[in-house]
């Protein structure tokens, strides 16, 4: 367990040092959300209906953009290889890196999203469910993204390929989250959706690190 915390601490420290780069996906998120009223229509009714989906899809894309940061710099300078040689279960190492990634990108998104949602006339009583779904789901996004990044680590144009691989797996998360938000907007029960997302998170958290370890082995072939 000490391995987990020390890696987590290390990665967060590195993230703080690189905070300029990490801000880029967040800026992307802000800009792209603003593009929708510009490209579609500033009509209140229309935007209000589209808002949950737009926020969510843009959050997905922003998360994808930030995925590379999880392993690439460590891979490039060889430190990932060293980390993998450390004694202790590798899945904990992976878990720590994914957690650090989530703290540095997922959590800021959870904070930014409700603010951006105001720009889209988001139904105000549903903003709570927006925050909750993002809170439960962004770790899932980091987990799933980790598999894509780990598989394409040794490839030159790995970034875009990894995004293409991961996006289909994001679809259930997207669907359940936006359904939860729409239910909340219509004053319908949401707890079922939260439970589903929570279950998805737990299963991913338990299984995905093993897949990531296997993928890293392939990349280091």
């Amino acid at each position, binding site marked *: 367990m000490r391995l987990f915390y020390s890696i987590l601490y290390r990665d967060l420290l590195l993230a703080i040092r690189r905070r300029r780069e990490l801000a880029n996906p967040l800026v992307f998120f802000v800009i792209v959300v603003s593009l929708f009223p510009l490209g579609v229509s500033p009509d209140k009714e229309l935007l209000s209906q589209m808002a949950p989906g737009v926020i969510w899809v843009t959050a997905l894309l922003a998360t994808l953009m930030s995925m590379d940061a999880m392993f690439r710099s460590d891979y490039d300078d060889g430190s990932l290889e060293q980390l993998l040689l450390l004694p202790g279960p590798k899945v904990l190492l992976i878990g720590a890196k994914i957690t650090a990634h989530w703290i540095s990108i997922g959590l800021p998104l959870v904070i930014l999203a409700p603010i951006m949602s105001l720009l889209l006339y988001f139904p105000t009583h549903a903003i709570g469910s927006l925050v909750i779904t993002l809170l439960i789901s962004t770790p899932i996004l980091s987990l799933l993204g980790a*598999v894509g990044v780990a*598989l394409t680590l040794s490839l030159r144009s790995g970034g875009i*390929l990894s995004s*293409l691989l991961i996006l*289909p*797996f994001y679809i259930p998360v997207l669907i*359940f989250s936006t359904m939860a938000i729409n239910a909340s907007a219509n004053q319908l029960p949401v707890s079922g959706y939260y439970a589903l997302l929570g279950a998805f998170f737990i299963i991913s958290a338990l*299984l995905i690190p093993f*897949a990531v370890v296997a993928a890293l082995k392939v990349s280091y*072939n």
Partner: protein
Amino acid sequence: MMQFIHKYGSPRYYYQWSRGWQKWLAIITVALLAIGLYQSFFVAPPDYQQGETVRIMYIHVPAAWMSMFVYMVMAFSGIVALVWRIKVAEIVIGECAVLGASFTAMALITGMLWGKPMWGTYWVWDARLTSELVLLFLYFGVIALHGAFDDPRTGAKAAAILAIVGIINIPIIKYSVEWWNTLHQGPSVTKLDKPSMHISMLIPLLIMAIAFKTFFLSLLFMRSRAELLSREKNASWVKEIVKEMS
């Protein structure tokens, strides 16, 4: 079990025993297709609601079934390739990805052509078609990942992991898409799902379904054998075979 896998999975032995299977499967495929097509067009009745367009069902549904079946074969080969490092399994993964994408494309195209006379538009975001579309994306992912590596063995291992992650996610994706669809359901219910099917329609459908399976297996053997020759080109048994052919 291990010995069984290692024996039949060894490249040289696989090349031998697959030859017979490929030939017989090809013959069975042609026979079943002939019977199935005859049944589909001349024996099965036109549908009470859909008229003659129901004939499309006899290729759309088998294609859709195959798109799922091939993915399972691919994921299973992935497990065999990763756990026991069988070279033949690695080749099968790559071939299944391409063949599976073909079947998925067939299912989508026939689905669209069936949909236009039924619903008025070529595309409808119903659960079935949407799931097939996502499946196509998954296949594209495996194909892209497999081909991105210089060493095909590494590529196969990466594709195997992706396929295994995919097979776990596919039920989740299907479930979420169905749920999404029922929530946004318009007044017209999809007519592609039939609650119960008359035996006169079921038999041609099953015959065509089996024909598609044998077609897939025969093609899989054909392609994997060719690929095997290429990958094992330095082995003495391969050089013998090539010499005999000239």
